[in-house]
């Protein structure tokens, strides 16, 4: 699972960094050739910075994403669904570990990343700042948020940074189960009783706006985005990823006679592009800023875990150990 909405830094605050033109040209030639970049290679400062930012956001999203789902482990309907959601939550934490390790190879320590999550400097996906009010919310998350994440992750697995690609390959392999169990839970409710259908419909209505926000605002016109795509940091525009998601999954919602709370949502038969109403981008920016319904709780829980576990880490900490950046 992951926040697909890559959130770039405010570019106005940064002056462009002058790079050695020869090194930059050689770097770009290698990217064009399809070579993967490894941690020890020379890379533009901006490339390193944006990758750290992106992989770190992704890692935080995995950790925080496990919180709304973890809430429902104790109340999952039936033993098999309890086992599945437990396995999924463990996977998500494992994915965060893989991603933190990939980001570490770029020179930011795991301690620094987690500090920045807890003190609010780093961002994570908007969707995890909403509550999972019912089991139906878990079905919607497991099916649609994971589906959206897979669209993003499958594309990014073909990016240029070796350690991130390797982490994503393993993640995508495990996510296949997440999507399938989510779809299974979703279909079970949709084909169940009148009451389970109406509860699922209500959850779908609640989640549709955050799901439309998931890939982030349109970035087609952004020069910044163009450079990141040239360097294969970003593999598709936010709009293209959202369109791919709508194309794959809206029909699978409609086939169950469920509705989506957007009267303007339809596929243009000439262009093949999905059209939709304004999903209220103001709300998206407010949630990213920290003002969503669950932001404070998510960070407080993460901080609690770090503070309460501190003595264990300290007790086991090896003496005189010098940190070395992981190799790959």
């Amino acid at each position, binding site marked *: 699972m992951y926040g697909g909405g890559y959130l770039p830094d405010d570019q106005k605050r940064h002056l462009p960094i002058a790079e050695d033109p020869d090194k930059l040209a050689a770097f770009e030639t290698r990217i064009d050739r399809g070579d993967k970049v490894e941690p020890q290679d020379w890379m533009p400062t901006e490339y390193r910075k944006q990758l750290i930012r992106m992989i770190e956001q992704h890692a935080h999203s995995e950790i925080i994403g496990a919180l709304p789902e973890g809430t429902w482990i104790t109340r999952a309907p039936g033993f098999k669904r309890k086992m599945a959601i437990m396995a999924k939550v*463990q*996977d998500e934490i494992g994915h965060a*570990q893989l991603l933190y390790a990939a980001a570490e190879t770029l020179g930011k320590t795991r301690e620094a990343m*987690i*500090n920045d999550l*807890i003190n609010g400097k780093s961002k994570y996906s908007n969707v995890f700042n909403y509550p999972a009010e019912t089991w139906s919310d878990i079905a919607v998350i497991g099916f649609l948020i994971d589906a959206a994440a897979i669209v993003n992750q499958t594309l990014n697995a073909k990016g240029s940074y070796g350690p991130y690609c390797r982490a994503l390959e393993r993640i995508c392999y495990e996510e296949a189960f997440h999507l399938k169990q989510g779809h299974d839970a979703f279909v079970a409710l949709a084909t169940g009783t009148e009451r389970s259908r109406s509860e699922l419909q209500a959850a779908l209505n609640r989640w549709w706006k955050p799901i439309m926000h998931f890939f982030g605002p349109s970035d087609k016109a952004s020069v910044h985005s163009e450079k990141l795509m040239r360097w294969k940091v970003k593999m598709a525009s936010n709009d293209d990823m959202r369109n791919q998601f709508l194309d794959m999954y809206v029909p699978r919602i409609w086939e169950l006679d469920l509705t989506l709370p957007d009267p303007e949502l339809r596929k243009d038969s000439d262009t093949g592009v999905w059209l939709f109403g304004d999903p209220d981008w103001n709300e998206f920016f407010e949630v990213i800023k920290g003002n969503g319904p669950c932001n404070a709780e998510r960070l407080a829980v993460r901080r609690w875990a770090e503070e309460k576990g501190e003595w264990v880490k300290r007790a*086991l900490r090896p003496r005189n150990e*010098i940190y*070395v950046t992981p*190799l790959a």
Partner: protein
Amino acid sequence: MKLVSLDPRVCRMDMAEGAAPDALIQENDHWPTYEVFAQKKRGDQHQHVGIVHAPNGEMALVLAKEQFARRGMCVNLWVVRTADVVATSYEDADIFDSTPQKTHREPVDYKVKDKINRYNQSKKEKNEQ
């Protein structure tokens, strides 16, 4: 103010309010890293699969099992402290450049069929004379 949540476990926590200090966690709090190598089945090579943070080798094995052997096959794990790995540098990758040219190390470089055919041909011609 007490944090009110949908999650009863969260309601039971005695949680600190407000933003965390800038650096709640000290460097190296999360322990050093170990490189993990997994063997899928007996007879296979061990393969590098990633890293874990751990306070010692024994814990690194426990965490590596959770992280890299949750599904699929695995019969054996190795962990090595990252600091103990000695590696070549990508900058010196040209030391391998001439390797593909060393075709005298490849079986395809030794073509005998033509010679045998020529030999048999000349033998046949001699016999016909």
